[in-house]
């Protein structure tokens, strides 16, 4: 066995309120694909960010070619031959493929003080790179004209052009369809043959057995173990990933659900949603599982009136409604806790109080005049009820921890007296304690009969919280399970497109 090109020893990284990585070990050999799996918040992305020099580590050691190294900047990482392909791609839309690939490292013409880009060389080498990956992309095209998978390929080519020895893929297939995924895998195999070490992050347990050699499991920032995929079964992995006692994590008391509150009939939106039928009863939590990019968030956006559906009807409390805008949705009593907490959920530069009341001002003060005392009491009420840790109500929300921020978002919608809640990844990236509290809140909501639609990538959460579970795959509802019959295996399989028809529960 050759010596490892990358070794990680006892690396620790903590953020305010949560230890993201705790003495984690990891190693990588040339020409192997080493997969890292784990739930959201298990510490996968933190590990990547440490390796690619975005964050500094708190303690521990990195070895590249068994040389101890410090990765203190993105450039340092690149010099060490580590490059990362993030979920959100870093390309300049206005520039051409070739320009993007050699951005900042353009080969210069000889003479003329090496001032000029050797366009010939750029084009030639780009062409070589692309054809070595068997890609038919013209180097002259502006990146903005490419499809997302194509752009991803360009990122790969860019990484190769940097003579990367270690290539990190962060959820590369999340935005890809089946065929595109195969194309990506083909390329990854090409890279393996060149002896490049690949770190591969994914939720899609099935696909990793197709591509990976070894797999390391992380959970809550802890190193759980490393297996050869040849020997590991999906179920082993899931057990290792989930591995904690679910009960107390998910405080739910189940009741008999009431009548239908929200009903979707044949909702379609070109390219993302196909003929979605879905019901939510009063007093039940409906889990919406599926891989990232399977259309869960898109569905939520349709219900909240962000993107209009092309066809199909939405019935709320039995009335047929056309929801043209989020404003309309809020007036109908729909609340939407988005997955993008920082960007869409909160006003970073406003105080806790203002964030809590902003959406409900119209209801609180119908005549348009704010009574500070009343506003104060309302905000305080929710701060206490949700145990939001903040020194003062006027604290800028951006200074709060992730968990408290999420509680503020919840408070914002609770304040609107919303009648239907849509939660998109309600506990993403927040520590276990806060997770539990948010779960308790969800339970209290349904206790009062409020219907809740909960999108989550964390199977335990889906299983632990939901009365009923819909699973989505490529924009379709691929399965529906009752609490009783649902298991992680079943859900994962339906999420990966293995349709297991089961009789819908009545």
């Amino acid at each position, binding site marked *: 066995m050759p010596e490892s090109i990358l070794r990680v020893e006892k690396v620790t990284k903590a953020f305010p309120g949560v230890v993201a990585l705790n003495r984690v070990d990891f190693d990588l050999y040339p020409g192997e694909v080493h997969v890292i799996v784990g739930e959201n918040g298990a510490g996968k992305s933190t590990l990547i960010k440490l390796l690619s020099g975005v964050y500094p580590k708190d303690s521990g050691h990195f070895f590249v070619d068994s040389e101890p190294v410090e990765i203190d900047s993105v450039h340092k990482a690149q010099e060490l031959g580590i490059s990362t392909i993030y979920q959100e791609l870093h390309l300049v839309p206005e520039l051409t493929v070739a320009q993007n690939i050699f951005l900042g490292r353009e080969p210069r013409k000889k003479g003329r003080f090496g001032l000029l880009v050797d366009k010939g060389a750029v084009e030639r080498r780009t062409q070589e790179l692309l054809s070595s990956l068997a890609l038919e992309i013209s180097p002259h095209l502006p990146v903005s004209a490419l499809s997302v998978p194509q752009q991803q390929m360009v990122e790969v080519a860019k990484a190769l052009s940097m003579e990367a020895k270690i290539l990190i893929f962060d959820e590369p297939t999340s935005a890809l369809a089946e065929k595109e995924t195969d194309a990506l895998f083909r390329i990854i195999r090409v890279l393996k043959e060149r002896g490049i070490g690949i770190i591969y992050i994914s939720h899609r347990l099935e696909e990793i057995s197709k591509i990976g050699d070894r797999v390391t499991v992380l959970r809550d920032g802890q190193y759980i173990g490393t297996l050869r995929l040849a020997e590991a079964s999906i179920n082993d992995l899931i057990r290792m990933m989930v591995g904690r006692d679910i009960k107390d994590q998910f405080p739910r008391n189940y009741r008999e659900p009431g009548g239908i509150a929200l009903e979707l009939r044949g909702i379609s939106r070109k390219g993302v949603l196909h003929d979605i039928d879905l019901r939510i009863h009063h007093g039940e939590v409906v889990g919406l599982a599926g891989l990232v990019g399977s259309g869960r968030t898109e569905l939520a956006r349709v219900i*909240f009136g*962000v993107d209009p559906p092309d066809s199909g009807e939405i019935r709320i409390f039995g009335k047929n409604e056309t929801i043209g*805008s*989020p*404003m309309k*949705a*809020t*007036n109908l009593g729909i609340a*939407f806790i*988005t997955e993008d907490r920082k*960007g*869409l*959920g*909160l*006003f*970073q*530069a*406003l*105080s806790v*109080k*203002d964030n809590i*009341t*902003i*959406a409900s*001002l*119209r209801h609180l*003060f119908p005549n*348009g*005049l*704010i009574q*500070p005392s009343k506003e104060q009491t309302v905000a305080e009420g929710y701060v206490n009820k949700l145990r939001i840790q903040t020194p*003062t109500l*006027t*604290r*800028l929300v951006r*200074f709060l921890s992730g968990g408290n921020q999420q509680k503020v978002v919840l408070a*914002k919608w609770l304040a*609107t007296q919303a009648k239907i809640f849509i939660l998109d990844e309600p506990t993403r990236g927040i520590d276990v304690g806060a997770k539990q509290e948010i779960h308790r809140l969800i339970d209290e909501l349904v206790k009062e009969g409020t219907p809740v639609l909960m999108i989550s990538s964390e199977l335990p959460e889906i299983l632990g919280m939901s009365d009923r579970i819909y699973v989505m795959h490529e924009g379709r509802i691929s399965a529906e399970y009752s609490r009783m019959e649902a298991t992680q295996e079943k859900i994962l399989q339906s999420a990966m497109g293995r349709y297991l028809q089961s009789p819908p529960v009545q």
Partner: protein
Amino acid sequence: MNLSGSKIWSQFNRIIAFMLIIVAAYLLVPRFLSYTNIVNLVRQTFLLTLISYGMGLSMLVAGLDLSIGSVAALSSCLAATFIARENVLLGILVGLGVGGVCGLVNGMLIAKFKLPDFVMTFSMMFIARGLAMTYMQGESIYGYPKSFIWVGKSFLGPIPTPVIISALLMAVLYFFLNRTTFGRALYAVGVSKEAARFSGLSVSKKLIQIYSLSGLLAGFAGLVYIARMNSAEAEMGVLWPLEAIAVCVIGGISFSGGEGNLLGLFLGGIMMAIINNSINLLGIPARFQDFFVGFVIILAVAIDHYSKRREAGG
């Protein structure tokens, strides 16, 4: 106003800086604190803030309104034609109406057609000015009935009426910004248009309302000014946009929107007034004035900027 975090800090700095300036002026400038000069300062301060309200509001929603001066000229010239014919009320209505309409056009094109505020209001600056000049043909419309002149010239006790008007307006706007749901939504839109949208607020409506209001205020300021000058001319307010930006910026209203408040704007107004006043009292040739003002603005903003940075750091 939620005087939280950075806001307290920046106000703090601004108040200190403002104290320093006053002390300096007191030491250097003869008769600076004489009764008459204080009245004079107060008047000039409020006249400055009067023209800055619209700019301040548009900046709060991360916008900009360069057209205030021209709009004021156009609306007040049209208004003057009626006022001079003893038709005061109609005149005032026309003045406000024209201003509002110009603002509405700004808002519509910015919100609906997604024109950058700079491009739109800059064009409006040309258009309104051109129309005003073509309409006036160099004449000036003067000689208004007492009832109207009163607006600009007379005193209530020791206080000049324009001061009272501007102060009342400030009070109204303050109430409007801090005590109404609209004002709160305004800040929200300024901080993040998308987050506002996802909180069920109608962003484009807010933008349109703000720019209309800005136009309305410009028209209003125009009326006060012609009452003061007792005459309307097309050249009015050429320097307003720059003066207003200076006041707002010194007052700590940030270009990124959602940050700043009327207290700051008021302090900014005071500082600008003191600077101009001192320059004249000291008899500094006007040629130094541009240099001076430019320098002070950069200084003020730099201080503000660093105080914020420190606050964010600590």
